[in-house]
Each structure stands twice: as structure tokens, then as C-alpha cells.
């Protein structure tokens, strides 16, 4: 135990540098996946055949490829066609795109849960599609989408560890580096695990709270 605490004191400052990058990658990839996911969902909802086809195809392809392979693709293959990204940029974009497919499904489910009758009523008083989206669908869909959205953020926080494979020095990668030089695997990975848990638990509780709150009304 004292060995653990002593080790922890040594390793924590370095691990915290990793935490900062983990949070940066998570935050920005959540933003990208949310924006893109919303775009895919709207394209599906539009019922305009080409748009529906594009979004369905994209989602199917993205969901069929492991995230780690997508990251390799963006970081190692893109330079061949002249797109050079830093590891952090590639990680954020890769994770953002990969998760946009899952976000799109969440959003689509939320939008489709709104009874069509209300949408017709909104149209019948002269609302444009955009107004219907903003005033009728969104306010109700948000309640439906928020709990799964919380779960997605938790998954993205954990899956941000995947970007360690393209050299981003986030939490997992820092842990690996320390462990490799100290051979203190036990202490290092216990710490890494506890830090992930500490980051995700608040989100887990918040999501549960939202689930309970919205299932009542």
C-alpha cells in the first residue's frame, strides 16, 4: 500500500498531462460527432432520396469498420493524398467521425419518436420544416435523446484511449510509457483505471438522473 502511494505520487503528475489530452480529445470529438450525427439524422429525416442514401451509406460503412482501423486510416493513409494531420487532430477527427454514426442513430430515434400528427398540425398552421424542427420536434426529442447521448459521451471518453495507438500521449499512452520504464504495471494501470472511473462516474450519475427524470413525464 505504501508502495502504491509512493508510486502514485511519482506518476500522477505525468498521468495528469495525459488526462488533459484525454479530455481535449473527448471534448472535441464529442462536438464533431454531435454536429455530424445531427446532419446525418436530418438528411435521413428529409426523405429526399439522395440525401437519405448518402447518410445511410455513410452510417453503414462507418459502423462496419473498427474505430482503430479508421484512426490508422486517417493518420497513416491520409498523408499519402496530401492531408497531413497531427496525431491529436487525426484522433479527434477519427473518433468524431466514427461516433457520428452512432449519434445519428440516437438522433434519428429521437426525431422519429415524435408523433406524426403533431408534425402535420404544425404544418397545417403554416410552419416551415425548419420551424417544425425547432419548435415541435427538437424540444421533445432532446428529452428522448439526452440519456443515450450521455451514454455515448461515456463511451467516447473510454474509447479516446484508442488514439494512444496513433501516438497521442493521452492517459492510456502515458500509463504505457511509465509502465514500460518502471515495470510498475500494478500501480500504473490501477491508477489509470481509477482516473477513467473518476472521469466517467459523474457522467454516469448525470445520465441516470436524466433517465429517471424524463421517464416520469
Amino acid at each position, binding site marked *: 500500500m505504501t508502495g502504491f502511494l509512493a508510486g502514485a505520487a511519482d506518476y500522477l503528475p505525468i498521468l495528469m498531462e495525459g488526462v488533459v489530452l484525454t479530455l481535449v480529445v473527448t471534448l472535441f470529438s464529442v462536438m464533431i460527432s454531435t454536429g455530424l450525427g445531427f446532419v446525418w439524422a436530418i438528411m435521413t429525416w428529409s426523405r429526399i432520396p439522395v440525401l437519405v442514401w448518402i447518410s445511410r451509406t455513410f452510417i453503414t460503412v462507418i459502423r462496419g469498420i473498427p474505430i482503430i482501423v479508421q484512426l490508422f486510416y486517417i493518420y497513416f493513409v491520409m498523408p499519402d493524398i496530401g492531408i497531413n494531420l497531427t496525431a491529436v487532430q487525426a484522433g479527434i477527427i477519427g473518433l468524431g467521425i466514427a461516433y457520428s454514426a452512432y449519434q445519428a442513430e440516437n438522433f434519428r430515434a429521437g426525431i422519429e419518436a415524435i408523433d406524426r400528427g403533431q408534425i402535420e398540425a*404544425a404544418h397545417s398552421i403554416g410552419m416551415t420544416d425548419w420551424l417544425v424542427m425547432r419548435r415541435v420536434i427538437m424540444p421533445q426529442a432532446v428529452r428522448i435523446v439526452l440519456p443515450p447521448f450521455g451514454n455515448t459521451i461515456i463511451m467516447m471518453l473510454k474509447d479516446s484511449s484508442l488514439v494512444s495507438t496513433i501516438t497521442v500521449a493521452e492517459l492510456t499512452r502515458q500509463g504505457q510509457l511509465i509502465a514500460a520504464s518502471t515495470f510498475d504495471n500494478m500501480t500504473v494501470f490501477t491508477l489509470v483505471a481509477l482516473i477513467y472511473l473518476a472521469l466517467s462516474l459523474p457522467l454516469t450519475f448525470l445520465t441516470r438522473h436524466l433517465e429517471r427524470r424524463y421517464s416520469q413525464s
Partner: protein
Amino acid sequence: MISVQDIHKSFGTLEVIKGVSFDVAKGEVVCIIGPSGSGKSTILRCINGLETYNRGAILVEGTKVDPTDRSIIETRTQVSMVFQRFNLFPHRTAIENVMEGPVYVKGIKRNEARDQAAALLEKVGLGDKCDSHPGQLSGGQQQRVAIARALAMQPKAILFDEPTSALDPELVGEVLSVMRDVAAEGMTMVVVTHEMGFARAVADRVLFLESGTIVEQGPPKDLLRDPQHPRTKDFLHRVIHPME
């Protein structure tokens, strides 16, 4: 004011409207009756541009109803619709439901729209329910809010699609009496209904629709009391004597 000219409408290979024509004059109340699946809802939905039609034309105040054109927004502000299942916005209060169109479609100031909405809710007998959510209201009350919502657009005509069919029998009267008041103020109305009493008392004209065509039409005192066509006779007999 509304002119339906030989419209045809198919869903896939199924033709559900087979050449329907009628005109509705300003201030007139037209009731449409007919068996389930005869195309009554489809006709109203075409007039409101919620559904496209394949052939013919529908004119509202001389403007063609075209759901694929931007002008449909203008048409819909002139013709409101009341639905069988109310279709209120469940996340908004009664008064917000009524204000929604005036504020967001017509751009009327909130305060002004609120006063107007309160007056309309008062008129349909729900002055004390302004801040209730639809979930807290009975079916009859919800439908009256929906009528207030339609009136708030100050439309030139209102289309009603079986407005009392989803209601418990004891709640039908309150909705019909609000509709009668609206008619008495000179509103142009097209009402799909199974309430023959309402048609007899309020309609200027009744259309009997079957299998996508108008079989017979006329003033309620003729068509309902002394129908000419055997199909109309048969339908009315079944509505009035459902157990036989």
C-alpha cells in the same frame, strides 16, 4: 373560396380519389359523410396541402394548392385544420399551443398573441385552462384548444376531420357546440363527420362520398331525410340503425 376541380389521388396503384369536384362559398358549411376508407380525410388533407394529388386542381381564393411550392405556407395560414386526434403540442400549455402559429408563423408580438389566445380560449370555454398542458385536459377540452389554435390563425376557412370521433360520447356535445358557434360567426367550414345531428343543424350542404367519388350532394334536409341514391340510403340506414 375553395374550389376542388376533378382531383384524382392514388397511393401506389390504389386510386382513392377518382375525380372529385365541389366548391365551397365564403361562409358556407359543407359536411362530408361517407363510409370508412372512402377518401374523406384524403380530400381534406389535399386541400390543406398535407397530401399531393395526381390530377385536377384545388384553388383557395384563386391560388392553386401546391404542396411542393413555397406558396403552400401562405395557403395553410388561410386554411386551418382540426384533426381527429387533436394533435396538440404536448410540451406546451394550452395558451402556448394557441399562440404558436401567430407568434412563429405570422410574427405577431408575444403580448398581443397572448391576449388574443386568452380571448379565444375564453370563447371555447377554457378560460381557466390556459396554463394546463394537453395531458391534463380531457379529450373534449383538447379538441376545443385545437379549435382555438385553428382560429388563432384568423383563417378564411377551417377543415375539420372527424373532430369528435376520438371522444367519449359525453364530450361530443361540448365540441359540436363550439363548432356551431364558429359556424354562426360566418366561418367557412368543411367538416368530415359521422354526427348527422350536427350536419342537419349546421350544414348548408352535405356531400356523400363513397369509393373516392361524390355519389350525391344537397342540402341536409333533402339528402339526410330523403336520399335519392340507393348507396346513400344504405349508408344512412346503417349509421342511424347500426344494430340491424
